[in-house]
């Protein structure tokens, strides 16, 4: 009798915990929407395309921050994806036995560095270096392309944020890709090598094509991280509300605009608008993660090979 109660009790208890996790996600969505509701009813969807954020005139629009989020994440992904895939290939295919474990662990440690520490390094070490060396150099050599405009005097700006995000995203994409590459059956690789393919041809012809969807999911997960990062970006992006083609200029992302206002916002409308930004960020974050998870679940990365 006692065992019957124990069995049912444990089952119920664990079921409740699982349901509570589902309820938690629901509560997050509901609460953030409820907080943003005054601004949502006030602005409707035109908030998303509003180009002005002016607390003095009390005009608020999200477009500068959506732009900042999109471009900083884009910079991060453009730099991080090839780098991370190269690291993952090196770890899974090329590394000599002893180096593999050590370097693999070190790349994982890169992901363990707290974002606030990375941001501190970004603002006090990386930004001055960029302001004095890299940005003027890029402006000199490639200044005819509008995105490499006037260097930032302090080194803080969209480009710096993109670089810091790159450092955060590389270990995420690399560790997922390494697992994928290790799953490719040895026979496939050995078959290609036996046919006379060079190592690179094996990678390009066998390993990368058979893990394509998994790589896509890894990139989207990296994107999710880049979009949602608030702290390190707030520290290095400079803070601004003007959309400019120059990637060295200061702006804010959705997440960094919210974080930067933690000591309180002026008017009630400004506060509600910040919460509207949070609702947009939540929606984007949920969609990217859902997309990545669905890709992982629906497409077996090695479909048809075993």
């Amino acid at each position: 009798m006692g065992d019957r109660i124990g069995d049912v009790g444990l089952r119920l208890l664990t079921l409740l915990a699982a349901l509570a996790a589902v309820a938690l996600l629901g509560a997050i969505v509901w609460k953030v929407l409820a907080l943003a509701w005054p601004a949502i009813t006030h602005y409707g969807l035109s908030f998303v395309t509003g180009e002005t954020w002016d607390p003095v005139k009390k005009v608020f629009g999200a477009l500068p921050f959506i732009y900042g989020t999109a471009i900083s994440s884009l910079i991060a992904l453009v730099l991080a994806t090839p780098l991370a895939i190269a690291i993952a290939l090196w770890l899974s295919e090329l590394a000599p036995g002893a180096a593999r474990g050590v370097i693999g662990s070190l790349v994982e440690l890169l992901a363990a560095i707290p974002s606030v520490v990375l941001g501190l390094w970004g603002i006090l070490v990386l930004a001055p270096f960029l302001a004095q060396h890299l940005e003027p150099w890029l402006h000199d050599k490639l200044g005819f392309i509008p995105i490499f405009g006037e260097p930032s005097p302090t080194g803080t700006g969209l480009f710096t944020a993109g670089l810091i995000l790159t450092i955060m995203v590389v270990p995420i994409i690399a560790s997922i890709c390494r697992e994928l590459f290790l799953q490719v059956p040895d026979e496939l690789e050995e078959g290609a090598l036996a046919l006379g393919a060079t190592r690179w041809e094996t990678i390009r012809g066998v390993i990368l094509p058979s893990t394509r969807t998994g790589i896509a999911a890894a990139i989207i997960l990296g994107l999710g991280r880049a979009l949602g990062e608030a702290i390190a970006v707030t520290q290095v992006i400079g803070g601004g509300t003007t959309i400019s083609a120059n990637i060295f200029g200061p702006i804010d992302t959705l997440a960094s605009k919210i974080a930067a206002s933690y000591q309180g916002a002026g008017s009630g409308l400004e506060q509600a608008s910040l919460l509207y930004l949070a609702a947009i960020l939540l929606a984007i974050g949920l969609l990217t993660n859902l997309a990545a998870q669905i890709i992982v679940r629906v497409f077996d990365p090695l479909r048809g090979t075993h």
Partner: protein
Amino acid sequence: MSAASPAFSLKPSGQLRRRRLVSRLMESIGWLAALLAVGVLFLVIGSVAVRAWPALSWDFLTQPPALFGQPGGGISSAIVGSALIVALATAMAVPFGVLIAIYLTEFASRRVAQPIQLVLDVLNGVPTIVTGIFVYGLLVIGHGQSAYAGAFALAIVMLPLVSRAAQETLRLVPAALREGSLALGVSRWRSVVGVILPTTFGGILTGAVLAVARAAGETAPLLFTCSIFNPAVSTDVSSALPNIPVLIFTYSEQPDQALHEQAWGAALVLIVFVLLASLTAKALLARSRRKLGR
């Protein structure tokens, strides 16, 4: 076989040489990429260590921050506050996460387990600043900031990590152990609590340590829940407590050399803690895998 000259040459033709060259080139790019990642890691840790050096002293670790405008002072109150907040968050997230993992591995059918797992994975992807806003709306509006609100926000960040780690170890438990226990007539709940859970202790501990390492450095969930505090040492969790991540964040935003030095010192303390925790987790994981025979 006669020694007639072969119809083909074993000397690489131009085409093959080119293919080999491309392959070599790509291989060296792989080496460069790996070295670059490790280089950045050492660069960051190295600059933190070098710049933190002048700030470090016994007083730095044991004194509360100096009053405004005065030199010296330390981060003892932030260390105490961070320890309390993270301990509270762990106490919330670990039991909850383990219960979810038990349900998913021991009781749920595949059809039920999959959507719940999806929810946990999506929860893991919620931007942490939004988690902070959620807790702000739930616990801070009308009540003010507090250490337990911060801990609750951190617990939400930890939950998917703990649950995932617990599931992975529960799945490693050999079926023979589970079946043996049931075959001896032990009821389901007794075999879960008495047989299966004890064997997974090491794995769950690993997951908990990793989640603690992550939570200790999380700033965004604390910004709206536990960031406006009295800098003195306190253990009152119903008020906002000073903590290391928020301290580094606020100091880094000030144009003050002395505060920057303190921020570097605090960053070194944090980074040493996180790296030690990660290494401990790795060692624990290797040990528990060995014990489970994998």
